[in-house]
Structures are given as C-alpha cells and as structure tokens.
C-alpha cells in the first residue's frame, strides 16, 4: 500500500517537475564514419558505420516483446553563411528490431524496403544495424557540379513507435534517450 501511495506521489511530482531526460549510462550511439561515393550509375551511395549500444532498460523491453524502432536520418544540404543550411534531399531509413522468442533470435527489419534479417544475437543485430552499405541517397543530376554540398546523418531511437504507455514513460523517466548528433561530411563529385 505504501509503495502504491509513493507511486501516486511520483505521478504528481512528475506532472509538476520539468520534463527532463537524464542520459542513461549504457545507451549510446556514435557514428564512426560516413561518406558518400558516386557510383557508375551516377547515384551517390552512402556507406556508414556506427556503434549502437542499448541499455538494460531497452534490452528488457526488447526481450519482453516491445519492438524498438531506430531511424537513420540522412540529409544532403548546402551550407549557407548566415542562414540555416538549404536541405536538398532528406531520407529516413527506419529499422525495427524485434526479439523472436521461438527461435530466440532477433529480427531486424528495414521498414522502408521491407527487407528483414534474422540475427542470432543482439550484438550481431546491432552491428548489422550499425553498418550501412551502399544506400542510394541522391541522383547526381539533382546536384549542381560547381556548388559544394554536404551530407549529414544522425541515428536515434524513435519514441513515437514505442507502445503508448512506454511512449509516455520514455519522456518522463530517464534511460530512454538514444540519439546521435549530426555527423557531416563533404560530398565530392
């Protein structure tokens, strides 16, 4: 009973307290490298790798049947001196990581293409997720050769895709923030 009361108290406190997310110690995402190359078909392909680790709370949710959705935001933009950059192209690749209890494996599904992989361990699944190979981003004809373009990407956990009760909690309790900053690189023709 006391515990229950304390929980109500917590609810009220959380309502009134400023909504802040405390960085959980174990969850992080670091983009190691990313770059675009122009292939024969005149399309820029992105290759990137990032280390993504999730904390215990996320892993528990995953194992308890809550799929985690990650988004890779990729933008091609033109930096401007005094204004915000002009975004030429923006694509988002979303992956859903899911635990399969029957085979005790992890299912990684590209929500854009529908392609899915069954991976034996979480580490492998995260490693697979953290490797982007030859993702077509933009046709070079859409870019003007003389001008300078930059590419940038960021990776993060999609809160909105969490089930609603967890969604609310992910805002109110720490340990649910997973987001890399923008990682930029120049685009060379």
């Amino acid at each position, binding site marked *: 009973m006391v515990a229950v009361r304390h929980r109500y108290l917590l609810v009220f406190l959380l309502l009134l307290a400023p909504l802040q997310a405390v960085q959980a110690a174990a969850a992080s995402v670091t983009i190691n490298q990313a770059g675009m190359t122009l292939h024969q078909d005149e399309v820029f392909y992105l290759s990137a790798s990032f280390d993504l680790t999730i904390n215990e709370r996320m892993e528990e949710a995953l194992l308890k049947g809550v799929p985690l959705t990650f988004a890779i935001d990729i933008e091609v933009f033109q930096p401007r001196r005094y204004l915000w950059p002009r975004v030429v192209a923006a694509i988002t690749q979303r992956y859903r990581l899911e635990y399969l209890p029957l*085979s005790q494996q992890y299912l990684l599904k590209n929500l854009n293409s529908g392609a899915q992989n069954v*991976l034996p361990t979480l580490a492998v699944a995260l490693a697979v997720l953290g490797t982007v190979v030859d993702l077509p981003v933009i046709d070079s004809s859409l870019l003007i050769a003389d001008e300078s373009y930059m590419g940038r990407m960021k990776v993060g956990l999609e809160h909105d895709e969490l089930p609603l009760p967890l969604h609310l909690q992910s805002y109110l309790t720490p340990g649910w923030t997973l987001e890399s900053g923008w990682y930029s690189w120049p685009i060379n023709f």
Partner: protein
Amino acid sequence: MAHKFLKRLLSGFLPILLLLLSLLVSLYSLSTAVEGDGNLKQSYFWLLLLNVAGLVLLVGLIGNNLLRLIRQYRNHVTGSRLTVRLVLIFVILVLVPVSVVYYFSLQFIQRGIDSWFDVRIEQAFEDTLELSRLSLFERKREYLHKSEKIRDQLDRLPAVEHPLMLDEMRRNIDADELDLLTEKARVVAVSFVDSLKVTPWLPDQSVLHQALLQGQYIAVEERQDQGLYVRIILPLYRQGDIAAEQYFLQALFPVSGKISQLAESVQSSYGHYRRLAYLREPLKFSFILTLSLVLLLSVLSAIWMAFYFAHRLVAPIRVLAIGTRVVASGDYGKRLPRFANDELGFLVESFNEMTRKIADGQNEVRRSHQLAVQERAYLRTVLASLSSGVLTLDAEGTVTMSNIAAKQILAADLDQCLGKPFEEIARVFPALAPLVEDVFPCLQDKQNDWQHELKLGLSSGRRIIICSGIALPDIDGLPAGHVIVIEDVTMLLQAQRDAAWGEVARRLAHEIKNPLTPIQLSAERLRHKYLPDMAGQDARLLDRSTHTIIQQVEVMKELVKAFSEYARTPRLNLRRQDLKNVIFEVCELYRNDVSGIRFKLDIDESLPEVVFDAGRIRQLLHNLIKNAREAAGSEGSCLITLSCHGIRGSDRENDLIEIHVADNGPGIPEDMIEQVFEPYVTGKLKGSGLGLPIVKKIVEEHGGRIWVENLEQGGACFIIRLPVQGGSQTAAGNNRHHHRTEET
C-alpha cells in the same frame, strides 16, 4: 487596455467555461489514446502538455481568486467572510466525494490490470513455446544432418560441377531451395523446387560471416507470405585453395503448413502476452496519470466555480449589507440594484421599499418639525408684537414661556423664571408677589376663565394691571396648562380720567367764564354809581360787598384760567437746549422769595442737551416747587432736593433724563398716591387742585413719565423721566407704545 481585456477574459464565466470544456475534450482524447487509439498516439504527449498547461492556468486563476479573497478578508470587506465560508463549503463538498472516487478508481486500476496477468498463464505460454521449440529442434537437426551430407559431397566435387549437381542433391534431401553463395552473398548456383521461382532468398552478409565463424548457421525464419522456413548455411571447405573465394551452401526447408502456423501463433501470442505483462506498470502509470489529470481538472474547476458562485451568491447579500449600513448611518436615499428574480431579489426589493418608506417618514417628520418651528416662530412673533403680556404655564404650573410685553409690563426679566414653578416668580421678583398671590389660587383651583385687576408697585411706578387666565384645552385627557394674559391698564385708565377731567375743565371754564365778566362789571358799576352817593353804614356794606364780589370773581377767573390751562393743548415749542440752565433759572427766582425755600441741587454737569419746550418745563418746575412749598406747610422750613441726571438707554435714541424733585413735607398718604395727578385731589388747604395734573400733562406732552414715591426719611419725591431726543406731543394713550419701542 490589453490588461483590462485580459482581466475580463480571465474573470468572465464564458472564457473559463470554454477553457474547461477544451480541457475536458483534450482529456477525453487523452483517455482514448491511453486505451490504444492509434490515431491519437502521436499527439498524446502534446495533449498531456496541453492539459498540464490548462491546469496550471486554472491553478493560477484560483490562486488569484484566493489572494483576492484573503486580501478582502483581512481588510474586513463586507461579504468576504460569507464568501470564505461558502467557498470552503463548496470545496469540501467537492473534495470529499471526488477523493473517495479517486481512491477507489486507483484501487480498481491497480487490481484490474494486475488481475489480467497470472503466473499460471505465463507458465503455460512458456511451456507452449518450449514445446514448439523442441518440435522444431528435431526437424532442424534432421535438416542439418542432410545439409552436411550435401556439403560433404560438394566439397569432394570440383567447383565447376557444383551447379550441375545442385538440382539432384536438392531432390535428395527434399529441400525447397538449395543455393551456392559467395562471401558477398552473391549467387553462384540455385535450385528451386518451384520452377516458377527465380529469386533466391538471400541471407544477410553477417549471417554468412557467422556461419563461417561457427561452421554452421541454422535458424527458423519467417519468409514473407510463405510461412516458416529452416535456413541452414554451411561454409564449403576446399582444400588447397586458400586464396580462392569462400563459398557457402544454403538450404531452405519449409516447415510444414500446420506446424508453421501453430508455431507462429504461439510466438505471436506469447510475444503479445509478454509485452502486455511488461507494459503493465507503464499502463497503470498512464491510466493513473490520466485519471489524476481528470481528477485535478474536476477539482480545480469545481474550486474555481466555488469561487465564482460564492461571489455571485454573496454579491447581492454584500450589496444588502452595505445598504443596511448606509441606512443605519442615516442615509435613507440609498436604492439597491435588483439582481435576480429569486428570494434575494425579493429581499432587495423589500429593502428598497423599506428604505423608501423610512425616507418618506423621515421627510414627513422633518416637514412637520419645520412646520412646528415655523408655527413656533410665528407664535413667538405674534406674542412679541402683542401689547398684552402673555405667560404660559404647563400642567405642573411651570413657567414655559413669557413674551416681551409681559416683561415690560411687569418690569421683570421673566426669562430667569423659565422652567421654574410659577411661585418662584414671587421669590425672584418680590415686587410681583401680589400678582403671584392673586393668580396662584386660580391656578390651583384649575379655574377655566378668570380675570383680576391688581395694583402693583413696580420699578416703573405703580401700575394697574388686568390679569386674565385661561386653562388650555386638555390634550388626551391630560391638563395642558394655563395661559395668563397681563394687560397694563394704568395709562388707559389715566387717559380716560384725563379725558374726562379735560372735558369737565373745558366745559366748566366755558360755562363759568361767560357770566363772570358781567358779574364783575355789574359789581364795579354798582360800586361806581352808588358808593360815592352813599355814606355811612350803607357805603361800607356796598364797598365790602362789591369788593368781595370783584375779588371772588377775580379768584374765579383765576380758577377758570387754570381750568382752561389744563384743558388746552398748546403747541409745544420744542428746541434742543440745556435743561440745567432752565432748572437754575427757576431756582434762582425762588432764592430771594419771602417764603424762604431752600434748594439742594444735585445736577449732573455732563447732562446732554435735551429737546423740550422751555416755557412748559419752567411751568412744570414752578408747579412742583409750589406744591413742595405748600406741602412743607410752615414758612421757611421748606427744603427742596432737586437732582437731575442722565440714564443711558440701549442707544442714543433711548437716552433719558431723570429729574427728582423731593420735599421734606409729610409725604402723600398711601391711599392718595394713585390719584395725586388727578384734578382736585389734594390734601392741602390751599391750591387749585390742578397743579399736579398740569405737571403730568406737560411731562406727557414731552413723551415722558412721572410718578411719585414717598421717601423713607419723609416727604414725597416726584420722579420725571424725559427722553433726551424729545417726545411726542400726543396724549398719554400713546405713551405706552412709545415706551415699548424705546425698550425693544
């Protein structure tokens, strides 16, 4: 302007109602979202924020109201106490049931959600899953075994033959698909059971990597729309060709339809259950959060409404209270605005009616008071202008009022006796004792109408007064007192007497004077004609007789002359002159007189000049001196004290000169003192009896007064008062009027 608008916006009922409604709608959406409506899921967080913001706004409004109420309470603003009480009652009325409902709702959420989950169900799910796993495990082993055989066969064959053998091998092991793949997951050779199929189901590169590391890869995977498959990947071992590319064999075995379906169903159900169990606490949290928000909204809006309605309820009462206070302080003109058609409105209406009536009554009282004051003033004026003195007594015989005429007639400041018993007058003014003694019995006997004539010796001389009394009509059966009317009839009586004597004198003079001259002439003729011819006895007789006749006629002529003197009203020759000189002149005439009169003069040197007729005043003095000499009797013993001094009046117009002429004679008998100024009233042997009446006449001609007093050391003193500015020539009848104006 903006501030005002904001204030009106925040204090009005409609804006707040709209706010509450919108909050209610958003809360409804929130609860719908919690229940799992996918459309609202995205906006859940924002709905939550919106609600919190709305609640904060409400809290702010309530805080504002509360602060205002506290301030009013501290300043003892009318109605604030009642408002506080009403707000408290409302809040308690709301809080108690809502708290109870909240408590039980929480219990229901806790227990309800918990009751969905059961350890036994969870165990059953686990077991089912394990069963499925075991079932698949057997299959997997079998398929692995088959695949390893194929791999061994392939290993023994040269690479170029691999594609050719693949179809046969696939048939042998009864696989759906058999592929040869490179490290980079490129297809080297494929074999399908379904000839229509052309695309192999390729694994991820990492899977190949894992297969290489672990020597094998085996997994049950779900193929899109085709159910479960067992995927087996085995690396090919090729001796002696280290530099060459690594190849993999992939075999795909379908899990039979029913098993696949069941396994999938088990997996999804188990996953669903696990997810629900895991989300139990967050779900409770969400429910409780939503419930708490709803509760807060209800409570806060109820509190706000408590404030609002308490204010609304108290407003007319407050106005009434203020109105009552205003009325209590004496302002009956206050009208209260009418609020509603309920009982309070009726109360306000009645209050207005009451104050209106009170105001009317008050006006009526004020009007009648004013009327009474006017009446009083009118009565006062009338009484003041009355020549009769009026004295009113109340039922107990207390003097309540006296007019100016009463004071003048009685020569007493009766104001000193106001509010005192009537008998007190005798004590304060001993001269009025006869009046009190005479009137008091009448008052005691409660005689209704009486009239008495009295004589009073006042400082203004002896006065004859007619005193009449009337009992005032009873008021409500209670005696209301008396009115005593006092009239000074001294002058009137005197004038009547004077007029009668004047007429007598005139007629007497006329009737007697006419025969006197023929008598005298006849006597003288007799004497002239017969006396020389007679001798002896006859001659003496005739001489004596005619002499007597002539002499007596002479005397009678004198008498007639005195009469006509008395009766006539000569023209006065008034001039402003020095009275002292006249007095000295007259006294000088008697200084060497054989009668041996002695004068004792006491003349004020600073006497002002007086307007008078010197001839008449001389006669006056002669008459008085003659009277004194005659009163003194024996020759040479007459001492006349003559004093003259001024009496200052209220202004120059009213200044008087007072002349005292006192003798050392025997004085005037008390019973005669009233009549000494009437003709033929004399105690002396000699004299015409007209001396003093003429004196009085002269004094009155000059607008003055004369009276006589007996002195204590013997002798009589005639006191004359003459106005410095001269008086009228009119008769004594007007004298009193003149006197009053002098004094007012």
